[in-house]
């Protein structure tokens, strides 16, 4: 019964969404208060209905109800509870339902917490949000119903892909979707603003927290995914420029640009057209990602089972949403003129540079991702675009952005003094020089590009810290004043400090782990010893054991450093039965200097085993850095001005409300 209940809730949700997509919008146009007021309860009811549907599917998974086709295909009674739950979104239909759930949760959040928005504007936002929901609900109901029955019910299910039976991956999709779908808020705000024909500082202030939240989630989701790839796939890699990875990375790049350009709209009433366009593009890229995973258009390790009917449907939806919003943009954008003037060297100028570089980088990733498709369509030739392309194009574009991002927060609004800003970063310059020198001494045999790479990361971290110290007048004013400034300085400025320092850590992690990694592949017998950098790995033995739904071999390696015991690593090679598949569970020991990584492969048949070891210096900085970036986003999100209602709009033109003339806290 629960499955039918879930199905019914979806049908009801579709009808509510249809009402919510039209009536409040018309009400805002006609000025009908009753119709406008419908938006809030509709959003809440729609959310409740999808929660019921999602709950019904989860119930079917937890109770292993194999009369539901989706459960029979993707679950198994012997699976641990966590993976029964994560199995709900480990497949096409269930993941769409999760997408919808998050979409309506965001909608309900606007309905409940959006008290500071003018009612007509809120009604328009919720209507646009409901239009997206209509598309996805129709997609689920007509092509991908998760509640389809399978009669007679099989005795047991087919199981979840063992690679997906992992805690890291259990949480990766929800975070990714929270990010993707979170950008739908920016989109809905942008489209609502285009319908109203007005973008102003208040708009930017409303849209920023939603964008920030989505960005935090997406950062976490991408980091979790790459961390999973790192420890689960057993090659020690963490980013492969796979089309679907790119699909999540493009909205991240566009969303990062959006975060920064929205600041300019908020503070200076400038870049309005561009920000609205970015909001549309960011969500469009999220939708594109959803399409790429589900249509089979590109080959990827992530692809779901594909069905041409689904591809057509989602493409039609994608084109309707994107072409519709961009047409609206083409009509309305000329009406929105920017206000604030600024010199090329200024905070705004820095943010424009940031936007130019981030969006160009995003475009190169898009080109590389879709190029195989373009070529196949035009010439019929089948190719893949791999890391060499991305490293050659993306890297050089990001380099100036990374160097400049250290200086940006030091620049004043409107007109800034670049020399002065750089002089105020003297500690960071010294730190970067010192890093260059130390790396040169420690790694005198190269690789040469890695040495400035480390210096770049140090420059970014040191500059972020120095900017914070400057803001607090640390060491320049009495300690009491610095403390007072610490307590009073805006949290969004701290968000910048954290996020920029985190990005520097990511750079150091990437550079160090790829430049100075040691890799050893060999066949080992019990008692053999292999040297990996400063470490030596001794093979103690391998023994079979049984897990809850797999059989496995566990190898034991005693690692010592300079003759002293350092760690014991126990990598596993697992053999799942439902469905049959082998997975590797790398053993990883994380230390301050980096990771030791061990993989046990196949037996050779005469008592020896193939084994693989890596030493990856500082690789964990990648994920620590991403975590700190995400924390920076959260700190900024907690800023007072997002919580205290945005000031009311003044005048039809929407004049700037809060013109900061100098860096925050100055």
């Amino acid at each position, binding site marked *: 019964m629960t499955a039918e209940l879930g199905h019914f809730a979806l049908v009801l949700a579709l009808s509510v969404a249809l009402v919510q997509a039209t009536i409040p919008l018309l009400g805002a146009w006609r000025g009908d208060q009753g119709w406008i007021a419908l938006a809030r309860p509709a959003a809440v009811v729609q959310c409740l209905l999808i929660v019921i549907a999602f709950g019904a599917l989860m119930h079917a998974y937890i109770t292993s109800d194999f009369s539901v086709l989706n459960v029979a295909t993707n679950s198994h009674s012997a699976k641990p509870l966590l993976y029964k739950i994560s199995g709900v979104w480990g497949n096409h239909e269930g993941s769409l339902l999760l997408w919808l759930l998050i979409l309506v949760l965001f909608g309900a959040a606007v309905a409940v917490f959006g008290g500071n928005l003018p009612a007509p504007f809120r009604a328009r936002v919720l209507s646009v949000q409901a239009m997206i929901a209509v598309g996805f609900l129709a997609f689920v109901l007509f092509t991908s119903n998760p509640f389809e029955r399978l009669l007679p019910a099989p005795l047991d299910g087919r199981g979840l892909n063992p690679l997906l039976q992992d805690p890291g991956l259990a949480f990766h999709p929800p975070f990714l979707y929270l990010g993707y779908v979170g950008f739908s808020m920016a989109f809905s705000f942008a489209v609502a603003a285009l319908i109203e024909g007005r973008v102003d500082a208040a708009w930017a202030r409303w849209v920023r927290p939603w964008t920030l939240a989505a960005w935090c989630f997406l950062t976490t989701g991408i980091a979790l995914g790459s961390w999973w790839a790192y420890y689960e796939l057993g090659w020690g890699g963490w980013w492969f420029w796979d089309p679907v990875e790119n699909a999540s990375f493009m909205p991240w790049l566009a969303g990062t640009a959006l975060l920064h350009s929205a600041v300019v709209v908020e503070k200076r009433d400038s870049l309005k057209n561009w920000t609205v366009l970015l909001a549309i593009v960011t969500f469009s890229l999220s939708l594109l990602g959803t399409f790429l995973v589900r*249509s*089979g258009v590109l080959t990827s390790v992530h692809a779901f089972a594909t069905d041409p009917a689904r591809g057509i449907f989602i493409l039609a939806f994608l084109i309707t949403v994107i072409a519709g919003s961009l047409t609206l943009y083409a009509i309305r954008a000329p009406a929105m003129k920017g206000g*604030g003037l600024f010199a090329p060297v200024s905070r705004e100028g820095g943010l424009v540079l940031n936007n130019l570089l981030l969006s160009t980088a995003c475009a190169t990733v898009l080109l590389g991702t*879709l190029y195989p*498709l373009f070529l196949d369509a035009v010439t019929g030739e089948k190719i893949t675009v791999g890391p060499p392309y991305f490293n050659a194009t993306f890297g050089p574009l990001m380099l100036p952005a990374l160097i400049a991002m250290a200086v940006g927060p030091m620049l004043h609004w409107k007109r800034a003094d670049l020399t002065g800003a750089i002089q105020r970063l003297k500690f960071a310059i010294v730190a970067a020089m010192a890093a260059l020198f130390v790396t040169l001494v420690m790694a005198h045999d190269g690789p040469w590009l890695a040495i400035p790479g480390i210096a770049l990361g140090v420059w970014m971290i040191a500059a972020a810290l120095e900017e914070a110290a400057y803001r607090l007048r640390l060491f320049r004013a009495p300690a009491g004043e610095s403390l007072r400034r610490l307590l009073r300085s805006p949290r969004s400025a701290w968000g910048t400090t954290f996020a920029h320092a985190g990005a520097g850590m990511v750079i150091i992690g990437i550079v160090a782990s790829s430049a100075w990694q040691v890799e050893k592949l060999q066949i080992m017998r019990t008692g053999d010893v292999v040297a990996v950098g400063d470490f030596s790995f001794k093979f103690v033995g391998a023994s079979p054991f049984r897990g809850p739904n797999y059989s496995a071999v566990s190898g034991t390696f005693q690692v010592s450093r300079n003759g002293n015991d350092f760690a014991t690593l126990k990598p596993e090679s697992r053999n799942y039965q439902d469905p049959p598949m082998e997975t590797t569970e790398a053993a990883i020991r994380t230390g301050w200097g980096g990771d030791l990584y061990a993989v046990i492969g196949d037996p050779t048949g005469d008592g020896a085993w193939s084994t693989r070891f890596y030493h990856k210096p500082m690789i964990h900085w990648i994920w620590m850095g991403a975590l700190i970036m995400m924390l920076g986003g959260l700190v900024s999100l907690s800023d007072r001005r997002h919580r205290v209602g945005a000031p009311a709009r003044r005048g039809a033109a929407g004049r700037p409300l809060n013109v900061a003339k100098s860096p925050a806290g100055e």
Partner: protein
Amino acid sequence: MSNPIAEQGSRRHWLRLVPLVIALVIGGFLFAGLNLRPKEIPSVLIGKAVPDFELPPLPGRPRGLTTADLKGEVSLVNVFASWCVSCRAEHPLFMKLQASGVVPVHGLNYKDEGSAAMGWLRRHGDPYDRVGADLKGRVGIDWGVYGVPETFLVSAEGRIVCKHIGPIMQRDLDDKLLPFIKALREGGTPQC
């Protein structure tokens, strides 16, 4: 300097259409992409003789499958397994094919337990003329199998004419396999 984007806007309205045009061009390519099937990596085996192999029958089922069995008449070889869900989707089509007698269908039971495979055939029907049990998946490697289900069209001379990856739909049968079978029988050499 004033904001360049805002300033150009009033003069060049057509610039506003650029994002829309780019989106539509990409959309057009994506639409073309839906019919392209990048996964159909041209198999090196197309046009070649089937690999040499000899597979035992499933326990309790008479005929196994060998290279020699694929010579003499046009046939289909369907790679299936009881653990494969998509195989259930295409199974009724093979049942219909067998009932109509258009073409003999042989099974290659891939990485499966014999008893599980037999149980599966009992439950869903057995459309196969011969079934070879490839317990270890060794023969599957020679055939270039990398996912189940896959279906091969083999000519009367024992040559692989076509390879279909994924479940066969009625459309694949009507548009591809059946016309090819007809052409093969009439002495043609259809290209996949």
